[in-house]
C-alpha cells in the first residue's frame, strides 16, 4: 500500500513536472521560409522541390502572406522547357506547380536570392523593405524553413557565386531567438551532405531534419524523359508522399518521429539525420504544429467584463504594447554572461 501510494505520488509529481516544465504554450501563427538556392536549367529539380513544398504548405493552411518563397525562377520560361510556363514534379505531369490555382507568389526572384537577403529575412534587419517580403514573426510563431540546392560540408551554395556557412545560419537563428521572433523552428534541408549544415545549431527550440550525412550525396528521384531533366529529389519526394497520405484532413496528430521513420534509407538512398536541442524528443513535436493554421481555440473562463478584458489583453492578445507594459512592471532578470557574449558577437558581426 505504501509502495503504491508512493508510486502514485511520484506519478503525480512527474505529471505536474511535465506540465509545468513543458510549459510551451501553443503557438498562434505559422510561417514558412522556402528557399531554392540554385538556378539554371539543370537544377530544375530544386525548383520543383521548393514549389512542391510551397503547394503543400499552402494546402495545409498557411496563407501566402505568411510564406516567404525565394526562387531563381528561370526554369519555367526557359527556352529549353518543352512545356513553357509549367513546372512539373512528376513525369506523369499531374500537377503543374507553376499554374496551380493560378497563383504562386514568389517573393524573392532571380538574382534577389542572395545570402544577404536570406539572413535579412530571418533577422528582419532590412533598411527598406515592403512588408510582404518580410518575415513578420513574433514569439508565438512557428517557422518552417526549407532549403534545397547544392551543398557541401558546412556550406550551401547560393546561386553559383555565393555560399552560406552553417555558422552564419546558426547565428541568424540565435539572433531570432534573442529578438523573440519564433517559438519553434523546423528546419528541413535537402542537399548533398545536408546534415553538416545543422550539426552546429545551438539555438533553442530548433529541430532540424536533413537528407544526407557527411560525404553522402542526395539523389534525385526520377528523370522526366520528355523534359530531359530530373524533376524531383528523393528526400522531398518521400516527404511529400508522407504528407499527402497522412494529412488529408488537417487533424493529423503524428509527430516528427513518424516522418523520420518513414524516410528510411531504402527510400531515400542516404542517411537522414536530425537534430533537436536539449533533451527533447522528436515524438514530442507534432508535425501539424508547423504546417497549417491553428485549429484549436482555447476558450477562456469569463469572470467579469473588466477582468475578462484585462485577462484577454494580457493572456491571449500578446501585443507589443502589453509586452512592454509587462516588462516595465516586472523587469526581466539580468541576462547571463553567455547571452551577452552572444549579443556582442552578433553586434560585432553586423
Amino acid at each position, binding site marked *: 500500500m505504501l509502495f503504491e501510494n508512493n508510486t502514485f505520488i511520484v506519478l503525480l509529481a512527474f505529471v505536474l513536472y511535465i506540465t509545468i516544465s513543458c510549459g510551451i504554450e501553443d503557438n498562434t501563427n505559422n510561417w514558412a521560409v522556402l528557399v531554392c538556392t540554385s538556378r539554371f536549367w539543370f537544377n530544375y529539380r530544386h525548383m520543383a522541390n521548393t514549389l512542391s513544398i510551397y503547394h503543400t504548405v499552402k494546402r495545409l493552411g498557411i496563407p501566402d502572406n505568411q510564406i516567404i518563397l525565394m526562387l531563381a525562377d528561370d526554369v519555367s520560361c526557359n*527556352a529549353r522547357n518543352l512545356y513553357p510556363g509549367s513546372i512539373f514534379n512528376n513525369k506523369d505531369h499531374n500537377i503543374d506547380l507553376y499554374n496551380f490555382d493560378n497563383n504562386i507568389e514568389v517573393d524573392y526572384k532571380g538574382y534577389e536570392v542572395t545570402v544577404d537577403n536570406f539572413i535579412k529575412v530571418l533577422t528582419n534587419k532590412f533598411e527598406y523593405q515592403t512588408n510582404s517580403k518580410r518575415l513578420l514573426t513574433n514569439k508565438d510563431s512557428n517557422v518552417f524553413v526549407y532549403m534545397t540546392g547544392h551543398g557541401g560540408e558546412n556550406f550551401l551554395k547560393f546561386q553559383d557565386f555565393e555560399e552560406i556557412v552553417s555558422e552564419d545560419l546558426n547565428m541568424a537563428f540565435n539572433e531570432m531567438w534573442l529578438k523573440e521572433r519564433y517559438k519553434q523552428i523546423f528546419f528541413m534541408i535537402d542537399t548533398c551532405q545536408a546534415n553538416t549544415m545543422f550539426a552546429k545549431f545551438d539555438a533553442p527550440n530548433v529541430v532540424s531534419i536533413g537528407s544526407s550525412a557527411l560525404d553522402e550525396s542526395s539523389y534525385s528521384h526520377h528523370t522526366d524523359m*520528355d523534359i*530531359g531533366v530530373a524533376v524531383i529529389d528523393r528526400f522531398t519526394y518521400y516527404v511529400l508522399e508522407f504528407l499527402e497520405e497522412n494529412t488529408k484532413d488537417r487533424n493529423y496528430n503524428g509527430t516528427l518521429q513518424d516522418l523520420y521513420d518513414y524516410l528510411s534509407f531504402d527510400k531515400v538512398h542516404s542517411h537522414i539525420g536530425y537534430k533537436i536541442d536539449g533533451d527533447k524528443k522528436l515524438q514530442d513535436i507534432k508535425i501539424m504544429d508547423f504546417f497549417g493554421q491553428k485549429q484549436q481555440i482555447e476558450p477562456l473562463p469569463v469572470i467579469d467584463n473588466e477582468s475578462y478584458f484585462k485577462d484577454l489583453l494580457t493572456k491571449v492578445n500578446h501585443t507589443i504594447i502589453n509586452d512592454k507594459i509587462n516588462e516595465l512592471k516586472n523587469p526581466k532578470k539580468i541576462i547571463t554572461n553567455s547571452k551577452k557574449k552572444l549579443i556582442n558577437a552578433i553586434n560585432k558581426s553586423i
Partner: protein
Amino acid sequence: MSLLLALINKAVESGIIWKILRILPILSKLLLVISVALIFGIVPMDGSFRNTYISENALMPNQAYSQFRETEWNIVRGFRNEISSLNIWNLDVRNRIVRNWLDDFGLETDLFQTDFNSPFSNGLKSEVLYGVLNGQRCDGTEAMLIAAPWYNSENNYNVGGVSVAVALTKFFTNWPVWSKNIILVIPETPGFDLRAWVESYHKDLKITGGSIETAMILDYAMDSDSFDHLDVEYIGLNGGLPNLDMVNTAIHVAENEGVKVSINGMQSFSKPSNEFKNRLEHIAVGLQKMAFAGLEPLKGHEAFSGWRIQAITLKAVGHGGNSDITTFGRIPEAVTRSVNNLLEKFHQSFFFYLLLSPKLFVSIANYIPAAIILSVAYAAMAIHSILKTGLLTSNDKFIDIQSIEAFVMYAVSLTVSILYRQFVALIQNNHLSTQQQGKFILILQVFFVFTSYRVYVPKSKTKALMQAMAFMHFSLALTLLLALNFGLCFGMGVLAYPMVLAVEKNTSKLKQRMFLLISNPFVAIFLMYSFTQDKWSWDLFNIMISTWDNIRCWTWPVVSCSWLVSWILVVISCNGEDNVTDEPKRTKED
C-alpha cells in the same frame, strides 16, 4: 642558398659534372629510349589511364528521349530516294534543289561561293549551301552546326548523310526547345570548301547565327538501310582537339542507342578493350593522325579547328548490321539536345588528351613528359657539340673566321628552308605532274646528302658549332610544339633522331649518309606516311604546301622552319673527315 651553393661546390669538386658531360651522347640516346617507352609502354599500362566521364553537369546526355523514330522513318527514306537520284546532276543543280526544300522548312538559306587562287590548288571553285534555323525562343547568340558533305573524304556519294541531315533539320523545325540556333551546311567536299565557309562565317558571311559552339559532320556514304558501327573522328588540324566532353557525349549517346562505336577508324569493339596491344594501337594511330592531320583527305571536323568550335565527325561504316539509318539520326539529335542544355562554353573537361579506346583516356600530364624528354635529348646533344668546339677549354677567340662561317651557314640554311618552296620551284620543271614533283624532291634530298661535301667542307670548330646550333634550334622547335601539336612534336623528335647518330664519332661514311638520309624531313615523312596509308604517296610535298596555302595547316611551315634547317646544317657539318676528339679537355680548375 648556402645549402645550394654547398651542393654545387660538392658536385663540381667531385667532377660529376664533367662525367655527365662526357657521356652526354649516351644520355641523349637514353632519354630518347625513355621517351618512347613512356608513350608506348607506360601510358597504355593499367593505372595510367582513366575511364571517360562527363565533366559538365549541365550536359545530361540521354536524359531526354530521342524522338527521331518511326515518325521520321519514311521522311528519311523519302529524302534519300530523292538525293540518290540527284547523283547525276552537277553541284549547282543539286544545291538549288536542296535549297528549295530548306526554304520550305523555314530556314534562311544562301549559297556561298568559294574561290582559290593558289597555284597548288588547281583553281578550286566550289559552292556551299547553308541554312540557319533560328530557335523560336532563344536569343540567337550561339549556334550548333550540322554538316553533311555531298561527297565524303573517300569521294563516295554521301547519300545517307545528306538525307539524314535534311530530315533532321526538318525534324528540328518542329521543336521549340532550342536555346541556340541550328545551322545546316552542305559543302561539296569536307575539305577546302568547308574550311573556306567557316573562315568566311567568322568574317563576312551574309547570314550568320551567332558563335558556333559545336559542329557535327554526318558521313553515311552508303545506300543501305542499316550500318554496322559508328566511327567517331575527332582529331583536328594543328593539334586541336575538341573538348573531351563533346566526344564523350557522342560516344555515350551512341552506346545508349545500341550502336557499336569505334574511334579513329579502329574497330576495337570486336576485340576485348582491356588488352594492352589494343590500347597501344590506339595511341599509335592517334599520334599519327595528330601529326598528319591535313595531309590525309579531310573528314570534315578539321575544317573547324582554330575557332573554338568543338567538332566531331560521325561516320557510319559497314553495310548491313544491326543499326538503322534512323538510329544514325538519333545520335546527332541526342547530342544536339544535350548541347542545348549548356549555358556556358565547353570549359570543364580536357582539351589535351589521348583516347586509348572509346571509353579510356589519358590527360596531358601523363604524356607530355615524353615530349619534354625528347627536347632535352636534343639539347644535350647541343651541349655536347658546344663542348666539342673546344671553346670552353681553350683560349681561342670566339669570333673568328670559323665561327663566322658557322653563323653564315646557319643564316643560309634558315633562308633556304623558309623559302624552300620557291627554291624548289626555281630548279624544277613546271610541267611535271604532282607525283613526279614529289619524286623530284626526294631525289633532290638524296643528291644533297651525297654530293654536298664536294661543295664545302667545314673545319672542325665550324662543324661543331653548326651541329650545336642545329640541335639547339631543333630542341627549341620541339619545345614550341609541345603543347600545340603533341603528335607532330613526338613524331618529329623520334624520326629526326638519326641526325644525332650521324654526327657521332667513329661512324663509317656510308652509315652516316644513310642516317642522314632517313632523318631528312621529306624522306622520313614520306616513308612514315606511306607506311600508314599502305601506298606510296609521291605527291606529299604538294599536299603539304597546298594545305598550308588553302586551309592553313601548319605542318609545312613547322617542318621547313625547324626540321629542315637542322637537317641541312647537320649534313653540311658531316662533310669531310671528323678529326677532332669528342672529349672535353679538363684544363681548367673548376
